[in-house]
């Protein structure tokens, strides 16, 4: 009886796996974000938008900001990582993307346990988050 209770209290393997990946991704994302922000704020890497000009842009709506700053939306930042401000998007993207890796990682465990419904839901979630991350779901004012 005691053994059965202890078994029930155990966290499922897919939950443990999810937690471990989430934890590592979170720490890595935050670490990268703090380092890159340091490079930006202390002027070690030149920003695309000069620091003394940044306050001119953040009161615009996003369309005007992109237009005035001549920035392309979506994944265009990848081509601008040499700049101090855009290098920060590496850490931000990792923080926003770690959940997708967690889902991908648990799918084999769910399939192995014949938990087909949850495996399908997890696959659907990966597709949805992937679509959001890809930038294909564009909108505007």
């Amino acid at each position, binding site marked *: 009886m005691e053994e059965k209770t202890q078994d029930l209290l155990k966290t499922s393997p897919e939950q443990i796996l999810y*937690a471990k990946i989430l934890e590592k991704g979170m720490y890595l994302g935050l670490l990268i974000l703090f380092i890159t922000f340091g490079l930006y704020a202390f002027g070690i890497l030149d920003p695309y938008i000069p*620091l003394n000009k940044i306050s001119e842009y953040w009161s615009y709506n*996003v369309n005007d900001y992109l237009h005035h700053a001549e920035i392309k939306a979506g994944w265009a930042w990848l081509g601008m990582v040499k700049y101090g401000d855009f290098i920060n998007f590496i850490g931000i993207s990792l923080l926003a993307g*770690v959940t997708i890796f967690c889902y991908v990682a648990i799918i084999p465990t769910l399939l192995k346990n014949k938990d087909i419904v949850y495996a399908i839901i997890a696959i659907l979630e990966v597709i949805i988050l992937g679509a959001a991350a890809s930038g294909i779901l564009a909108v505007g004012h």
Partner: protein
Amino acid sequence: MRIKDKLWAMIFIGLFSLTVWVSPAFAEASVEAAAGGHAWWFWPIVLFFVTFIMGILAVLGGVGGGVLYVPIISGFFPFHLDFVRGTGLLVALSGALAAGPGLLKMNLASLRLAIPVALIASTCAIVGAMIGLALPTNIVQIALGATILGICILMLTAKKSTLPDVPKADRLSSALRICGVYQEASTGEIIDWKVHRTPLGLALFVLIGVMAGMFGLGAGWANVPVLNLLMGAPLKISVATSKFLLSITDTSAAWIYMNKGCVIPMMVVPSLVGIMFGSFVGVRLLKIAKPTFIRWMVIGILAFAGIKALSKGLGF
């Protein structure tokens, strides 16, 4: 709550409101800042200190950082609502990412409960983000104000149930095997939990997802009542699963805002660091603070920020 506490809360809120509302400096500061009236580091530093206080209040008041961040920062800072919502989602997301792994490992956040709910909430958060970015800013601001005032009413009226009575799991939750066992640390009691009214609960997550994405608020304020009061999950499981759930819901909406260009690192990093440090301090203050007083204060600040958002949207 004692009358003395209520009085203190009202005095604090009154002073806070008076400082911000009456002082033209705050409103003019936006224009000045945009015109280069302050050094570039002025607003990021103010943002850091304000989010630091917000982090403390969020822990003590039992609310998420996102729900405080968006109305307060959009109401009183020179940043456009587009960037505030993008940053608000990243703030809420970071809090959820920081708490999620521990809650999952402790088996307090339930992946089995979260996975189906997250699919609905994250899909709808994308829709909400797209609606929010497509609508004119003043309309979003009015809707945000109304939502924040609604949250205040919810915080004032919603009850919590530590261990709700769930006589029988419904068919959907039985088929999905949404149930679990955890040990209550304070008593050592083994709690066997299950949920009911799952279809209605999932339907409500459509609305929660849309609102989370539209306003960049996070959604802990709505997740917990639905999981706990409607579906009957124990309070600890509801709070932990809700916190973890934000890491998925906010991720989907955050990508929409990011890909649209609504993320400015000079706003994101001071906000994240401020909220995180504030949360660390808040946890330490939790032992000596008066939670009821703080909760009243948070409700008061939120109500004020909600009215401010409404008036801004209406152009007053």
